[in-house]
């Protein structure tokens, strides 16, 4: 099966600029996640979609970050305006969970490394 696709692989921007990341999950995976991984730390969930609805965005800095998942398939994460502390790897993942909570798959993309200068 094809994996989770992300683009771009790398992005360098100046502070106060805007940037967008794209993710295409595994076909059939209803749940999509965006994680932020700061260098030397474990990933932290930013936002989670179930189909095209937001399930959890409690850790998303909503004054500058936004995300959407149109038609319940691919997703875009945007940062505007970027700050130096947004430098990180942004990982997209998708999963297939049964209504009872059984996990059938949880796959990560290769991530986008963002550097804000």
């Amino acid at each position, binding site marked *: 099966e094809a994996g989770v696709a992300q683009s771009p692989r790398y992005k360098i921007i100046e502070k106060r600029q805007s940037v967008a990341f794209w993710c295409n999950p595994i076909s059939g995976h209803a*749940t999509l996640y965006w994680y932020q991984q700061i260098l030397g730390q*474990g990933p*932290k969930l930013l936002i989670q979609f179930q189909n095209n609805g937001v399930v959890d965005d409690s850790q998303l800095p909503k004054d500058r970050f936004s995300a959407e998942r149109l038609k319940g398939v691919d997703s875009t994460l945007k940062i505007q305006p970027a700050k130096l502390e947004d430098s990180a790897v942004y990982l997209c*993942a998708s999963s297939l969970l049964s*209504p009872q*909570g059984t996990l059938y798959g949880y796959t990560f*993309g*290769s991530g986008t490394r963002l550097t804000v200068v």
Partner: protein
Amino acid sequence: AQTVTQSQPEMSVQEAETVTLSCTYDTSENNYYLFWYKQPPSRQMILVIRQEAYKQQNATENRFSVNFQKAAKSFSLKISDSQLGDTAMYFCAFMKLLGLLSGNTGKLIFGQGTTLQVKP
């Protein structure tokens, strides 16, 4: 709130030897998943092994096995016959095992990671 702690920032092992990575977690949940992920420089997060908390038997995957101590909330990873390709960052992660209608978001909570260096 759940937390995951990896107390070893860096570990090293000689090729062909055995190494154990430690992980402890804190939760009030009774049903959950625990995972070990490997992250090489390519940044891809690769699943190494997974354990369901309701299963008493420790999970194994070829050279990788876990020691799951539910009462102690401990979940260590043992890598046998270490290979150069095992060099990577390893993350322990926790996920609730609940139905979607019961609030299972599938959110993974990660530890800080352990950098493993396998030396020739």
